[in-house]
């Protein structure tokens, strides 16, 4: 923890990703700003449909065809990668600098290819290693993530869920990227496997000095890795905070409600639910998007709140103005 490098690795400025659909424009990611330090982990938490996965795809430029708007800045170690053309982006950024473990990656492994070859492939393609070197690199990654090295020769169906998830993680690490984006990496796993994968990511983070963006709806698990927390609601980030401050006292009313909805194992508090539903992203309300469900709503909330800086935390709520 002492040798923490304080320089910025990633800076996202005014990132927007809107899709056009028959029903209208879906504002999946709307003016998102946040920063990530080197060797840090930020967790993005929010309900399903709030745009968490779209945010990951927008950073990695893994876009569907029905794009309406896609702009803003994504600055990776001083370079605006949004300005790169698609081919340069593919050659120099994706996998090489930023890799991703997509949702349900463990079920997306190729069934007719040996695990080792699959894990080695990004290293062959993006680092121009020979097959032999890439396989050696894959074996090193297997050791790192706790997969027995003889599994290199096995097929996906021969592995348990936990082992397949580890293999997917090894694949994302094999090119030694600066940043790994994990989309719900443990949601389909059992409690013990989940805990050991989280253990593993803590170790990887310290040993390989990788940064992580962890996207999840599971708040308890997210606290296992978080250095900082970004809360997303209806396509916008409503709070960015250091993990210690966030988990002890969240600022935004939505964050508070979200924390109160988590059932506690070791504390005798009744969890509460959040009444109502998130707004549609096609025509989101003009003011604060959480206003309709907010217990602390007042007249000002009809205007959109700015992102307010409070100490080293940020919150998008008029209560703190």
């Amino acid at each position, binding site marked *: 923890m002492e040798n923490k490098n304080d320089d910025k690795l990633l800076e996202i400025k005014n990132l927007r990703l809107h899709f056009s659909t028959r029903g209208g424009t879906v504002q999946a990611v709307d003016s998102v700003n946040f920063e990530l330090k080197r060797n840090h982990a930020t967790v993005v938490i929010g309900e399903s449909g709030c745009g968490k996965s779209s945010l990951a795809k927008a950073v990695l430029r893994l876009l569907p065809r029905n794009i309406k708007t896609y702009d803003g800045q994504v600055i990776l170690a001083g370079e605006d990668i949004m300005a790169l053309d698609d081919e340069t982006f593919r050659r120099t950024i994706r996998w090489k600098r930023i890799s991703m473990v997509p949702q349900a990656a463990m079920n997306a492994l190729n069934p007719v290819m040996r695990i080792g070859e699959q894990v080695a492939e990004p290293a062959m393609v993006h680092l121009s290693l020979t097959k032999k070197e890439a396989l050696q690199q894959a074996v090193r990654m297997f050791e790192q993530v706790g997969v027995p090295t003889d599994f290199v020769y096995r097929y996906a169906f021969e592995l348990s869920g936990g082992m397949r998830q580890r293999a997917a993680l090894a694949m994302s690490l094999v090119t030694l990227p600066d940043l790994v984006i994990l989309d719900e990496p443990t949601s389909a796993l*059992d409690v013990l496997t989940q805990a050991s994968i989280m253990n593993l990511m803590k170790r990887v983070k310290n040993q390989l000095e990788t940064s992580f963006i962890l996207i999840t709806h599971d708040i308890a698990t997210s*606290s296992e890795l978080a250095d900082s927390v970004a809360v997303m609601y209806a396509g916008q980030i409503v709070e960015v905070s250091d993990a210690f401050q966030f988990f002890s006292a969240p600022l935004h009313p939505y964050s508070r409600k979200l924390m109160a909805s988590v059932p506690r194992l070791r504390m005798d508090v009744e969890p509460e639910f959040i009444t109502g539903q998130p707004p549609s992203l096609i025509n989101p309300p003009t003011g604060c998007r959480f206003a309709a469900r907010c217990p602390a709503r007042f007249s000002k909330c009809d205007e959109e709140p700015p992102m307010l800086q409070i100490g080293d935390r940020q919150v998008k709520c008029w209560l703190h103005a």
Partner: protein
Amino acid sequence: MSEMQEKSKEVLLSIQDLHVWYELKRFGFGHAGFVRAVDGVSFDLMQGEAMACVGESGCGKSSLMKTIMGLNRPTKGDIVFDGTKLTETQGEALRLYRSKIGYVQQDPFGALPPFMSIQRILEEPLIVNGIKDKAERLDRIRRTLTEVKLTPVEEVLPKYPHMLSGGQQQRVVIARAMILEPQLLVADEPVSMLDASVRVEILKLLRGLQETHNLAVIYITHDLSTVRYFSEYIFVMYAGEVVEIAEMETLLNNPQHPYTQALLTASSDPDANNALVMRDIPPGEPPSLVNPPEGCRFNPRCPEMIPGKCDVKRPPSFETEKHHKVLCWLYEGEKIVDATG
């Protein structure tokens, strides 16, 4: 809980040394062994009582539930539900048996047929169970929908599953399970597919239904943190066996089986300090149910394994305190309550 126990209760469901084995065939006919999905499970469930079943995938909990619902046949042992022995039930009697047990599936979207309206989905069990009067059927559907708080009812009835949110779909699934007024509700991870904010709402709904209808509930989950708000009793399954069974508070505060202890260690509450510590997780993975380890099935992963004992002889069930039974040699010397093995 004490006043609940004062009411005299009857045993609704009694599981007696239940074994569910699936035969493995070689080339389609040769015998190649058994998958011992459920191996010697016994417990009683009282009327109106909620019991939670905790275990990892592949531990046999789904096989156990399917057998309770009469979808599987026990290989050995028996299930007595409301005075009826499952092994002696067939045909029309079996249909009647099944109609007394409601089932709430894990994935609400997958559990609802996409081409049926909500009205049709809820009408189906009533038609199958011989309620011929259409007005009566509609009346029961309306009552049940109001009870699961899917209102306004008239707007919901003509809708199709995809038009509802995840939480609303799960309410339809619960309504379908409740519509025949069962005595037992089996809820298989009813909230694991839902968002945190909706989860609590559904759990509270289930709890409310249980109390108003004096319903027995078996709640299957892998998430220990939701159990606490739900059940009086809890049992932990590992590799086809019930390794620990106790009152809920007792189990959470004083877990005795090393596996239960590991499960509790692995479950976290939101706390930034979690990121600074490594969790103490037993190595390895649950064993194959075709060739389970000799002796205690947890012994290859257990931090407190006693060589020469745990890997040789299957532990009996020790009663360490009232209503608290553990399948573990660490408690040798306590009263043995069942010595199957």
